[in-house]
Every structure is written in C-alpha cells, then in structure tokens.
C-alpha cells in the first residue's frame, strides 16, 4: 500500500538586505553581521527569537578566522537555536536553508553570508591555500589565474592581447570581479509562516539545482562549464521546473566576464533578457565566496521589486567554476500562479 505523502511546503525569501562597503574599517565583521542580520529580521517583521534556525557562510581563510560560526552565531542571532555554517560557498547556504524548510525542519530560517577581504593583508595570498597541497600548491593558483586559464579556452585564435591593464591574459581588470566587504542576510519562510509584518513581499523559490565538477582544471574542460549544465539538469528534475526560456532576468556570479557571457549564452534565454542588471562583476563587488549568494539574492530582489515575474540567480564556486548553483524565484509560488502571491506587498531592500 502506498501512503500519500504531503507536498513539501513552498518557501519564499521574505526579506533580503545587504551591507556592501568597499573597505569597512569602522566596524568589525561581527558588527556588520549583527547589523545586517538585525535589519533582515526587522524587514521581515521578526526578531531573532522568532527564527527557527540560522545558516551562516563565510570564507574563513580570507577573513582570518577559523570555524567562525562560533563567534558569528551571536551577532547573527543564533544563540539558543540551531546554527549551521556552510563552508563550500555562500549560495549553498541559501540552498541548504531552502532544503531545510522544504523538509519540514522549522518554518523560518535566517541566512547570513559574508566576506571581509579588507581584513586580509593579501586576499590572493590566502587564496593559495585553496590549491591542493600535493602538486598544484607547489605551482601556485589563485582565483584570478584560474579565471584567466579558463578564459584562454574562449580566446579566439589570433586575438590581439589585452591592453596595458591586462592582469592575466586574456583578462583585464574590467573582466574580473571586484572585492568589497559584504554581508548579505535573508529570511526564508514557509508559506504558512510568511510574516504579516514584513516590509517586503515574498520571492517564491521555484526550484534550485547545483553540482560540482572535478577539482583540477586539467581534468575537465573549464570552458564547457559542465557544473552549470549539471545544475540546470538538477533544476529540471524538480517538482515544478521553470525552464530558462521563461526567465525574465538572470543574475550570474562567475570568475570573469567571459565566463558570465558564456554561461548566459548557454541558457537559451529569450533575446533581450537582462543579465546582471544589478551590475557587472566590477560594478557589483563581492568576494568570490559570497558572490553567488549575492547574485541569487539579487535575482530574488528583482522579483520582489516587480521587475520580473521569474528571475534566476547563478553562482559558480571553486577554481575556474568547478561548482555551479542555480536558483529560480517567482512572483507566484507555482507555475501559472495561484492563491499564493506576494505581488501586492513586494518591496526591495538595499542598504548598499
């Protein structure tokens, strides 16, 4: 006999705030986390006491901390409730939070992701530790060099070298992400717990997919962006797939602008679909660890501000885009819309 299982609850981003400063020297990281978390909760009409769980994500190697959830739980409002830290990448914290609520573990989650690279004397130096310690570390690898290696696969034969501002051929400074000190915080809630007092309306999470490719760039073709295609296939296996052809806006965090362009071109988007309307990698700075979370939440904001009915965020992580995550947000909770819609109460939040 087959027992009928209840459908997983629908989940929405009900508030989303960010604190982005080129170089924050007047506040500690924990103060930034506290202020941003507090504002995200307030925007949802909640306090820390109302939240069912807290999910954190930071890049401890560049921030100069270790197992930083120990010191960050307090400023994030996590004392007295379950706190989990996701080390792989900031966007995975959002995915984990979504899964947590879909599985019935609570009704609300506060997600907080951060990076404060200004506290590292040399963030690129810290990135060297990301190379495996057997062969690659003796050579040396950082995000910029890995991005350039990937981009060389796309450089046309005979293409003229970049101008004087070349950082690592074929990439110039304009092609590469800029860093900033950032904290992003969002509150997720299940349908029955979308707070009535929220100053922002819900951006419903319509689905997500994520995947990881092989670590070594030499063991894969970084130009193929296979992790993205696997993530899209994962997304398609969801219970309410939203094909890219129906996305009205896309936000992409990638190792370089050529990587953004190739990812966008692979999606099969309708002509004219805005890509990275929130800014180029240079103009919307974020350290790599939190860049994906930033773009996913930018897509959610695009929906919550009414600029698109359906928007997707894409984040790559790891050297030359080893991993990829896709999350789709909708003004309506399901295809075609139904009784659940935040259209009338939507407003964006942006503290930058």
């Amino acid at each position, binding site marked *: 006999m087959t027992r009928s299982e209840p459908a997983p609850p629908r989940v929405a981003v009900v508030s989303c705030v960010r604190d982005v400063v080129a170089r924050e020297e007047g506040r500690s990281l924990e103060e930034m986390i506290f202020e941003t978390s507090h504002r995200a909760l307030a925007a949802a009409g909640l306090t820390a006491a109302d939240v069912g769980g807290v999910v954190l994500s930071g890049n401890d190697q560049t921030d100069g901390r270790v197992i930083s959830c120990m010191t960050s739980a307090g400023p994030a409002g996590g004392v007295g409730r379950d706190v989990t830290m996701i080390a792989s990448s900031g966007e995975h914290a959002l995915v984990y939070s979504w899964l947590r609520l879909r599985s019935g573990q609570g009704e609300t989650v506060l997600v907080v992701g951060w990076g404060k690279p200004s506290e590292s004397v040399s963030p690129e130096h810290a990135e060297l530790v990301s190379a495996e310690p057997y062969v690659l570390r003796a050579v040396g690898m950082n995000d910029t060099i890995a991005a350039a290696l990937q981009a060389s696969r796309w450089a046309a034969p005979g293409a003229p070298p970049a101008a004087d501002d*070349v950082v690592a051929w074929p990439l110039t400074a304009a092609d590469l992400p800029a860093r900033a000190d950032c904290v992003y915080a969002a509150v997720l809630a299940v349908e029955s717990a979308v707070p009535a007092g929220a100053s922002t309306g819900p951006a419903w999470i319509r689905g997500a997919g994520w995947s990881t490719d092989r670590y070594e*760039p030499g063991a894969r073709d970084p130009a193929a962006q296979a992790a993205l295609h696997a993530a899209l296939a994962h997304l398609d296996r969801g219970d309410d797939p939203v094909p890219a052809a129906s996305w009205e806006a896309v936000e992409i965090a990638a190792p370089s602008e050529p990587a953004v362009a190739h990812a966008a071109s692979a999606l099969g988007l309708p002509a004219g679909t805005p890509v990275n309307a929130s800014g180029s990698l240079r103009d919307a700075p974020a350290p790599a660890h939190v860049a994906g979370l930033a773009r996913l939440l930018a897509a959610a904001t695009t929906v919550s501000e009414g600029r698109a009915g359906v928007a997707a965020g894409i984040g790559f992580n790891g050297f030359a885009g080893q991993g990829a995550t896709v999350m789709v947000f909708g003004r309506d909770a399901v295809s075609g819309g139904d009784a659940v819609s935040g259209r009338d109460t939507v407003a964006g939040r942006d503290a930058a």
Partner: protein
Amino acid sequence: MTSAVEPRFYTQTWDLSYRHALGDTTSRFLAGLAEQRILGRRCPSCERVIVPARSFCDRDHTATSDWVEVATAGVVEMFTIVHEAFRGLPDPPYALAYATLDGADTALVGYVRGLDLTDLPSAVASLAVGNRVRVAFSDTPTGTAADYWFEPA
C-alpha cells in the same frame, strides 16, 4: 558620553606549519620527476590516464590500477600570461599553462619558460591552445612540482 575615536586595527601574522602526507601515488609521481619521467595512473573504468598520477579517478570514483609513463611533450589546453604581482607567486610577467602530454588524458599544470614575455602578442601566439610544448626538468630536483616546466616545442 564618549567621543568618537579613530578606527584601530590589530595586525596579526600566523606562522602555521603543516606537513602534508602525500601518499604513495603522489610520492612516486614526484620521484619520477627527478628521473625526468612523467607518470600517470590508469582508471580501470574509463581507461583514462590521469596525469599527475592520482590514486583514484574522481570521475568514476574508482581506484586507479596501473602506472603509465607518458611522453614529455604534448599540447596546450589553456594558458595565461600573468602581469599583476601576487604575493607568494613569481614576479610578473610569467606564463602558466595546462598541457595534455602525449599518452595522457588529463592536463598537467606548469610554468612556461623560454618565451619572450615582454612581447605579449608573440608569447600569446606561441602558447595558443593546441600548440605543442615539451617538458623540461630541473637539474637540481627538489621533490616537488617545481621540478619541471614547459617550453615551446
């Protein structure tokens, strides 16, 4: 009531040391460099020859089975010529490439020497994806991946 103060900072440097166990496979790979040999391992499932040698194939989640010596020449898969200084890396400019050596199925990373990097167009043309390079070895091996590099073939 307290008055505002200038931001204060606490500068710290941690001198942490690690001693990573390389395992048998990587140890043999690095020992091969001192003999001017590039060694790979074959995956029994996909039959790819993985270079640098790994004890497992992460595509098939299978233990590799056989040692394979590959050629010391191959083709460039990707490359860059770095012009910005990064702490902990060589003074720029320098070139870095991944090349698939003849007989291998994955690409090996290494610096590229023997190029005039002050002539960027010429250096880029020499390293174009698909061009051939050869492996050169240090006369004074250190037992690390710094014991080899690529040169245009």
